[in-house]
């Protein structure tokens, strides 16, 4: 779990990983290496560097990102949530860019998602007909890119207030091991919060983990 200045959701995401049966350690943006024995990397949500310039742009150039890139190139799973998704796009590890919401405002609400690709380490085994109820909360969450060439993993069902190309809520790289999502699965990982649909992603990864 990489922590940048301005990361906000690292503790919630860590709790979600634990709830799914895994464990997570924090890595610092200025470090050159990921912790030894890292199976998967999560770039959590937040406002790294205050979203200045472009969301995720400054964090995507942090020293730790070289290690994340090496991990990804070796096939290691990487998940970017919200700001983490923005960082991965800015780092060139995912296709497209995230732009200002069509509403020109921050949007925080529960949305319904459909699984468009159940063959990534983060979605393997998910029923493609299942609707996931997970919240979004972002300012620059409109994915802009070519859905014909990108590997679309999640789509908004029904209305997409953000104005993403083709209702895209999450995309992966060609190999499928790097995934970026606008919705926040860590905010849907506890029955007290009304939905546990977000846990499915972390569980899928833990199941797929090479022993």
């Amino acid at each position, binding site marked *: 779990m990489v922590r940048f*200045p*301005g990361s*906000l*959701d690292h*503790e*919630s995401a860590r*709790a*979600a990983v634990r709830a799914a049966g895994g464990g997570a350690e924090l890595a610092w943006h200025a470090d050159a290496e990921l912790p030894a024995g890292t199976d998967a990397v999560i770039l959590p*949500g*937040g*406002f790294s*560097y*205050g*979203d*200045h310039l472009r969301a995720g742009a400054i964090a995507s150039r942090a020293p730790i990102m070289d290690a994340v890139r090496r991990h990804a190139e070796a096939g290691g799973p990487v998940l970017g949530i919200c700001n983490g998704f923005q960082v991965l796009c800015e780092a060139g590890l995912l296709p497209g860019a995230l732009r200002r919401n069509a509403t020109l*405002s*921050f*949007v*925080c*609400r529960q949305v319904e998602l459909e699984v468009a690709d159940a063959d990534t380490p983060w979605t393997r085994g998910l029923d493609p007909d299942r609707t996931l109820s997970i*919240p979004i*909360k972002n*300012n620059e969450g409109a994915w802009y890119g070519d859905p014909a060439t990108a590997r679309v993993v999640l789509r908004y069902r029904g209305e997409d207030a953000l104005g993403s190309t083709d209702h895209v809520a999450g995309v992966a790289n060609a190999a499928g091991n790097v995934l970026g999502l606008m919705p*926040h699965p*860590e*905010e849907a*990982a*506890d*029955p*007290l*919060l009304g939905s546990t649909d977000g846990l499915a992603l972390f569980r899928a990864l833990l199941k797929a983990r090479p022993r």
Partner: protein
Amino acid sequence: MAPTRERDLTPIPLHRQLGLTDEEAELIPRLLGREPTDPELVMFSLMWSEHCSYKHSRPFLKAFPTTGPAVLQGPGENAGVVDVGDGWAVALKIESHNHPSAVEPFEGAATGVGGIVRDILAMGARPIALLDSLRFGELSSARSRHLFTRAVAGIGHYGNCIGVPTVGGEVSFDARYEDSCLVNAMCVGVLRHDGMLRAAASGPGNHVVLIGNRTGRDGIGGASVLASADLSLDDDKRPSVQVSDPFTERKLMDCCLELAAAGAFVALQDLGAAGLTSAASEMAAKGGVGLDLDLDLVPLRETLAPAEILVSESQERMLAVVTPERLDEVVAACRRWDLDATPIGTVTEGDALRARAGGEIVVDIPAGLLADCPVQPVPLVPAPEAEPVDLAAVPEPDDPAAALLALLARPTIASKRWVYERYDHLVGAGTIRRPGGDAAVVRLPGTDRAIALTTDGAEWHCELDPRGGGRAVVLEAARNLACTGARPVAATDCLNFANPEKGSTGWRLREVIAGMAEALEALGVPVVSGNVSLYNESLGRRIYPTPVVGMMGVIERAERSVGHGFSAADDLVLMAGAGEPRLDCSEYLGEPLGRPAMPDVAAEAALCAFLADAAAAGLLRSAHDVSAGGAAVALAESAIAGGIGAAVDLTGGRRADEALFGEGGGRVLVTCRPEDRAALADLAGEVSLAEIGRVGGDRLTVRAAGADVSLGVDELRSAYERAIPEALG
């Protein structure tokens, strides 16, 4: 030390330009034993403003109950702190940023959030929730739309970026706030009992370290000019606007909490109104020590005079006292977070607040003097008693269903989704009950408990009857908490009033506080922190007396919290509380009219206790407070939230419109499973509990004194949800 230079070219004496009265200006040399220097006079002028000294309101505030078994820190620190069990504590405080928000709504509201968050941080608490209480003019006014939308954007910008969820609040619209909008922000934090920090400096020889943003010409004169003068909307009060920097605030939070957990601070204090002057004098006075500051060491953004450095209100700064042994650790942690940390002085024996610049001492005053502003008595002129509403003069509605839809679409009643969807109300994965209900419910990390949070106002009631309104605002807050299943534990308050030197405002202030105190005593809820904002009037238009109460309650088992939406068909609908609905002081009449009944504090305290017991026993399927718009609006809101209708017979009231839309009386709409009806009645004891209908279907049908209202839940929702977006165009 050089005495004040003569200023024979200035026709108006310096002290008056700074906002000091002639009496105060004569008193200062007597207290000091000499003439003050210019920087000293500026410091006095800020510290002796109402904003910093509470010189008009202080005597009245003594009426509040402030102690109790749960209180770990009452008023007098940066925030109040109460015990919530298992070694955990909650810090809370509310504060106004009204005048800065009227000048520049985005930055004013944003920096208001930043300021209150630093107050919580200064206690060593981790901020976990924000609430905002807002008042603007009617949305038909372009200026009010601008202030409203920009203030909401500013609050969202700041809260979202620092990762503290904005879980609740309130907004209402009335022409009285057209020129003087109100922006109050509340922050709540959690801490371990043994991790609580205080502002009291100690240990001569310890370092005074300034952490965070560099100092610039931000808000210079802000405390006195912006907060204590009638605002006449002219441009020359404007050059000192503070720009918010939430990214730095987040780093400040992360870094200070890391250091606080490591025990690296002797004391911690935020820099708010009056900047370094206020922070340093409070730290010295509270600790009974002196401070020696070298202004040349303060990191600056631009060249500033010593007096400017002393009063600059640059944001995102904290002042810490650190032992010599831990200084390197503090500086290193700040560097890791890319924050400036600069030792700018030391703690000394004695009580002198000293500041040097260019090697010379420019300030040397006993720190306590700055906090000892003489009380300014205010005139206490009772306002005439309001006349009860003459029902015969109020036409009965031709179409009560249309009247209900119109009420649901009044911006003050309508859904505030447009607001809270602009706020991250979830971050931290702790928001169990989201905005839109009676109170937010937030998980208490590390425990099975949750806390419920609300802010409330009752300004129409306070205008018509300040004593009763003072009671009403506290009782409404408690009822809102109780509806979620919480027991109220502590309150914080922000008293927004007009000019206390004019008309009946001083009397209203005293009466409102007295009424609040009566209700707080009955509930056993102490006030642990608060803030006063006076002079909210301009161009001859004064705001209503607007006390805002922030209240926190505890739910022992988080999973037992209760929502306000109907939950399932065949559940019974009951009215708890025996009060009579009245059109007096009702939103239905469209303006504050009539003489509302005096709230019965004992009955309402019993009602709150019953609701919390019933929730703890798992007997409530929903609970919703009857407030603005009366029982019909409360029923509609429960139907909309639950997505299911109900059929109900309303009793009470002298006519159908009063039964449907009458307010007051401390009533709560609850639902339960039919099989739990008897158990609920047992728990109710003396509290009146009347079965009035059943949940089910996709329509809300309400019968009252011959009137018959039947509307589809979708119709209700559409009126309720669309009003604010449509008013904004």
